[in-house]
């Protein structure tokens, strides 16, 4: 497995270089995992991507580097301590880099000669391909998807020049992932929504959720999806609810700040029993926080957001695969139970690309509203039923009237202040939780059956925890296992209860300061996480960091 860092200032073309490279390496058969670490600015500063590839499974990033592609001097200064002794630094010869591991190439001068000063990144791509024993097959096609047609020829030439400039250094590893997908969490969410029959997506741009809005907009015309940029997040969620009421499957997406504006309407979805899917792509808060970085601190917020009580479902995304299938499933659960379903993602999962088996949309069944109402009796939108789920008709699709209200209402949908009806309606709505609990997916169990220490995590720490368990269980007796939650509200607790009994020690690992999942687990089950690893610096924890901290006993 190899691990490269490509770094420079914002605006130097790191994203494009990485987008070309990751796709070529994946097509060559490698499993690829790329994370993006960038600042909240359009020009300057320090941005980098970590690109990991190999022929084994890769679950997350690593901070131990085989190579650094430095577009500026700062990149070397900041990251050379992470570079392995036999690693390499690829940089322009005009940068004053004297490290013995440096390959100084006149890339900018070469690009200038090619008549495209912005092609230095493509020269670097050629160099990397050669160093790692790759061929140039497919380069033109991949370039064609990333750069504008008028720059294709010069960029292709740049790759060839870079390829010629160095000698092969690492042997090509034969991987089997060439036919798999390479996709980010953001794009997988967009794809999942479209596969689930999304008809209307509305949002107000907010990092790190904007990518979903753009990914859906990019294919909306072909996919029969209307995309509307809302005036604010309140408008967005109310539009999504209106659309869903009228029968067009709808979704909205935001980050924590925007979600804060949405909370009243979340209750409208709960009260009026209108299916709704909302994604919160978390970033560090409170308020503006760190706009382009990652955190898992909205868990307790979204499980209790909005006044009053109503059933809801919250699903955390663990990886790109989840991003697709759980988004589809969110639409199914929202429709089936007529509730809001909240998907919790974060910047790390959203922006990271990973190699995944091609998605199969037929794996997820999708509930539909009623097409007609066969009963002889009068149609009642909020009819009392054993499951708490009332038949949902779409207005205008039958002769029946569909009446919904944010006030407490009777079965027909009319305002009421009756104490009896109020109690029955609350019971009816909350009854849906019973069915929902039967739908819950247990957390993923990772590691050794004979574990002593149990790690608990949720969402995006799935990858790092996976890698940490492998590192921790190396060599001596395998003492470690983990449960990583995707569904966590309502909390599935069968596996947790079972594994907690066996554990001598339970450590929760979360990207927040207060251990929010541990708190929820304690509230719902009484199970106490004796130790914690909590990280809230805006940067995703790595498997190595987790293993290191546990081995050194650096846990609270």
């Amino acid at each position, binding site marked *: 497995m190899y691990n490269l860092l490509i770094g420079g200032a914002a605006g130097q073309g790191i994203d494009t270089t990485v987008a070309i490279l990751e796709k070529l390496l994946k097509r060559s058969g490698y499993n690829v995992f790329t994370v993006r670490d960038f600042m909240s600015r359009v020009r300057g500063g320090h941005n980098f991507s970590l690109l990991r590839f190999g022929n084994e499974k890769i679950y997350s990033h690593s901070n131990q580097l085989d190579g650094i592609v430095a577009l500026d001097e700062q990149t070397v200064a900041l990251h050379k301590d992470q570079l392995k002794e036999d690693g390499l630094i690829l940089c322009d010869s005009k940068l004053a880099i004297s490290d013995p591991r440096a390959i100084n190439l006149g890339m900018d001068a070469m690009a200038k000669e090619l008549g495209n000063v912005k092609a230095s990144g493509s020269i670097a791509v050629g160099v990397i391909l050669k160093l790692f024993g790759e061929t140039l097959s497919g380069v033109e096609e991949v370039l064609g998807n990333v750069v504008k047609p008028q720059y294709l020829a010069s960029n292709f030439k740049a790759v060839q020049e870079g390829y010629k400039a160095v000698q092969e250094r690492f042997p090509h590893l034969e991987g089997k992932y060439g036919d798999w997908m390479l996709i980010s969490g953001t794009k997988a969410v967009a794809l999942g929504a479209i*596969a689930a*029959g999304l008809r209307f997506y509305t949002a107000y741009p907010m990092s790190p959720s904007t990518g979903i809005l753009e990914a859906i907009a990019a294919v909306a015309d072909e996919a029969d999806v209307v995309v*509307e940029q809302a005036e604010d997040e309140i408008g967005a969620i*109310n539009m999504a609810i209106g659309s869903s009421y009228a*029968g067009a499957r709808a979704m909205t997406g935001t980050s924590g700040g925007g979600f804060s504006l949405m909370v009243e309407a979340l209750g409208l979805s709960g009260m009026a029993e209108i299916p709704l899917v909302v994604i919160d792509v978390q970033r560090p808060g409170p308020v503006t926080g760190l706009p382009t970085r990652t955190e898992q601190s909205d868990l307790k917020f979204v499980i209790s957001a909005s006044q009053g009580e109503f059933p809801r479902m919250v699903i955390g995304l663990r990886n790109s695969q989840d991003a697709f299938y759980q988004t589809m499933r969110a639409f199914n659960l929202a429709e089936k139970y007529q509730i809001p379903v909240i998907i919790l993602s974060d910047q790390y999962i959203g922006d990271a690309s990973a190699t995944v088996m091609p998605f199969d949309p037929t794996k997820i069944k999708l509930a539909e509203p009623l097409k007609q109402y066969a009963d002889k009796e009068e149609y009642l939108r909020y009819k009392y039923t054993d499951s708490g789920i009332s038949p949902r008709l779409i207005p205008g699709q039958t002769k029946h009237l569909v009446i919904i*209200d944010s006030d407490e209402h009777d079965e027909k949908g009319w305002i009421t202040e009756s104490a009896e009806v109020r109690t029955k309606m609350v019971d009816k709505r909350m009854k849906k939780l019973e069915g929902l609990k039967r739908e819950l997916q247990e957390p993923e169990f990772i590691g050794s059956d004979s574990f002593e220490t149990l790690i608990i995590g949720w969402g995006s720490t799935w990858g790092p925890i996976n890698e940490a368990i492998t590192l921790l269980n190396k060599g001596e007796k395998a003492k470690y296992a983990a449960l990583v939650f995707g569904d966590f509200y309502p909390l599935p607790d069968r596996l947790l209860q079972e594994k907690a009994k066996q554990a001598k020690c339970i450590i929760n690992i979360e990207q927040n300061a207060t251990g929010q999942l541990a708190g929820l687990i304690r509230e719902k089950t009484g199970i106490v996480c004796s130790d914690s690893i909590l990280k809230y610096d805006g940067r995703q924890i790595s498997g190595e960091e987790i293993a290191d901290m546990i081995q050194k006993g650096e846990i609270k």
Partner: protein
Amino acid sequence: MNKENFSTYETAWCPGCGNFAILECLKTALEEMKKDPSQVLVVAGIGQAAKTPQYISANAFCGLHGRALPAAVATKIANEKLTVIVNTGDGDSYGEGGNHFLHNMRRNVDITHFVHDNQIYGLTKGQASPTSMVGMVTGVQTDGNFNEPLNPILLAIAAGAGFVARAFTGRKEHLIEVMKQAIAYKGYAIVDILQPCVSFNKFNTFGWYNKRVYELDENYDCENKTIALAKSMEFGEQIPIGIIYREVKATYHEKNFVLKQGKPLVECETNSEFVGKLIKSYI
């Protein structure tokens, strides 16, 4: 046909409230336009006016305070066959929902917005609204309201609305006619309906309005924006009612690529071949 088709429920409004006239005129307008109740959707936020959907036999969406417009435009985007009408108050439309009011005029979705404008907050019992006049003393504005009232007609024309009208509950025949034209208009139509609040607004009474309103006649050119802007600033001793401004504009459905194909969004289905193609593009 008679308006009983859209009738009739016991209301929770005060006797003498202007809302009764609006409700009655709305039912008549819908009847005269031969609308089928199952194809009509009345959307509201929260407030006394926002109870309207509860008192008419049609589909009803009683959502959140200030948020009737985003919900309403989305229902129309989802299903263009529905006749979507928003009935809600001045606080709901111009106060809590001010941002949506502004931006939905830019969208120009084909819905009708009837603002029950009584220049006071009724449901919360008598505080100043965005259209309350300077000097009005309330339990909150104890020294008299000193914030200038918002002029919804002027604002709507300036913001690009293509159908802007004012009506008064004391002129029912006129109100019905304006309502019918607003509903028939292709695009976002707003009618600011002056309505007395008998319980809380002791200043802008039925008599106060009745003395001042006058109907615009055929000599008034509602298609001239400059004239309309000047006319929209007339509010005081003389209050013009009728269509203040009217313009043919492309609707949201005519502008959006998917919607202009003509198939209601609610009837579209996801093409699994297309999804397969998208999945392949990541390989």
